[in-house]
């Protein structure tokens, strides 16, 4: 773990340094990343140009949902988004070159082409989050205040674990990177909207089967003073870090199984 983080830091720092040699180009891509990821928020703005509420949720509430999941997803994309290129590395054989180095392969794959421009998505998510906090009319308690950063951090961990599982899946299905997209990008889109607008089977699936609901729905609805989705009890709002830990156990197992399979089949 320590060795992995150290290697990740080394490789990421190298990429940051190399992008910083083209400052202008970096600034441009950062800006375009910021704008590009903001367009799905523009959609929400456009929607609220036509209506006053979605499923009984106000603009500020939807923006809060958007901000929490957007920031969490942005952080995951920044730190581990590169793992979805794993299938390509398996296909072209460059994974072998990572296996002969004395540091964990996951750290090498994740830090490869580390791109600070992905901060654009994080910044954009944070901006919406802050805006929503200004607009929200919530009776703040210490628990709710603490819950906001905890939500974002747990969401980050959950999304990044999902990315690792998606990458591990590519050990078997090298062209299967899109499946992970359904859970990462798809999950992010889903969680931007209040759970009440979705079919309850879908919501239960997201709560109990692939518990992405813990990225933001469960804790955020508590902050908003609304009922937890899928019939969860109120205290469930505080278990996001535990769910994130479970996600990472699963991700670790999936990754190990993937590497083992690769090393026995060579593909």
């Amino acid at each position: 773990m320590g060795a992995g983080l150290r290697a990740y830091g080394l490789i990421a720092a190298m990429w940051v340094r190399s992008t910083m040699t083209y400052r202008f180009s970096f600034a441009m891509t950062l800006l375009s990343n910021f704008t590009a990821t903001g367009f799905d928020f523009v959609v929400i703005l456009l929607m609220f140009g036509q209506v006053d509420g979605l499923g009984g949720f106000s603009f500020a509430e939807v923006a809060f949902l958007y901000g929490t999941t957007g920031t969490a997803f942005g952080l995951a994309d920044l730190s581990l988004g590169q793992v979805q290129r794993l299938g390509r590395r398996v296909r072209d054989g460059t994974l072998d070159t990572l296996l002969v180095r004395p540091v964990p392969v996951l750290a090498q794959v994740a830090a490869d082409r580390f791109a600070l421009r992905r901060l654009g998505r994080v910044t954009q998510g944070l901006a919406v989050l802050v805006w929503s906090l200004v607009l929200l009319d919530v009776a703040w308690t210490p628990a709710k205040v603490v819950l906001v950063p905890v939500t974002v951090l747990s969401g980050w961990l959950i999304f990044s674990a999902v990315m690792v599982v998606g990458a591990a899946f590519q050990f078997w299905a090298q062209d299967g990177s899109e499946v992970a997209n359904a859970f990462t990008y798809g999950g992010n889109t889903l969680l931007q909207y209040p759970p009440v607008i979705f079919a309850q089977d879908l919501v239960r699936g997201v709560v109990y089967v692939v518990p992405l609901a813990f990225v933001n729905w469960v804790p955020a609805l508590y902050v908003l003073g609304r009922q937890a989705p899928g019939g969860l009890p109120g205290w469930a709002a505080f278990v996001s870090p535990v769910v994130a830990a479970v996600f990472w156990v699963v991700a670790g197992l999936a990754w190990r199984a993937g590497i083992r399979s690769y090393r026995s089949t060579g593909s």
Partner: protein
Amino acid sequence: MAGGDSFVPEYGELSGDMRDGTYDFIELDGVEKVFDVRRRTGRFRREKHQVRAVDGISFRVPRGEMVGYIGPNGAGKSTTIKMLTGILTPSGGRLRVAGIDPSRDRTRLARRIGVVFGQRTTLWWDLPLRDSYRLVHRMYRVPDARFRENLERCVELLDLAELLEVPVRQLSLGQRMRGDIAAALLHDPEVLYLDEPTIGLDVISKAKVRDFLRDLNAERGTTVLLTTHDLTDIEQLCKRVMVIDHGRLMYDGPLGGLHEVGESERTLVVDLERELPPITADGARVVKVEGPRQWLAFPAARSAAPLVARIAADYPLVDLSVREPDIESVIAKMYAERSADG
């Protein structure tokens, strides 16, 4: 983990058998690698069958030796290298490198080995060469002084000074290969695996790479295992050669010994005064006739003298010469015989 001094051989923790003071650095005993391959046999049906890529190979390489490992495409060379580096887990048999089981202790072994894949680079494609080296420096925790010394040496001998600031993707194949070899050596590996290090290189680059490897082996005592298509590499670098085909070791011994195993033939080229029907002589056969010149093949193990004497007595001889068999034809013959058997 042994920290920063990974370049010092840690004899204490080695379990390799010590014999007469030299121990076998690389040991393979009946190593196998079996792949399950699914093949589409019908429109929807798939058939599973097994391919024995490496089929029970045993050999030992003592520290400091430089060994050629050759064979046709798909013979199992790369699979062997991948097992030696820990990329692939063997399906059977026992394998040790520096006393370490590569498949179990891959990252620990990684500090002590260097690997160069001819077909793909281990360098960071979009970064300048120097950045790749910096990363290697930190990743392998090479002591600063040691790193500087190694880098300077590699830069000088491999002629990299002009290339350090160039992103790897802009390097030519020969430049990249030199860059890759340097990257594999900055942490003072005890063994260097080279998988086709001269593939696609021009003559000058090839010579440079070979000179460097020869020096490395002589001065540092680095053990080198080299797979190649180019038999000149082997002829110029290795005293010992191993030939693999269909996953089996077919020959393991000195380069010269290949001729005997391959039952090779030498060629006697005879220039006669005029065009004549093919020469008849015991123990030799005419393989080619071109005007007054004829080519006779005879077993490499036999002396040419009696044959020459007989021809000189029976035919109007102008000139003659003996040609040694080249290693490529020897190996080609070995493969052909092996295929005929199987």
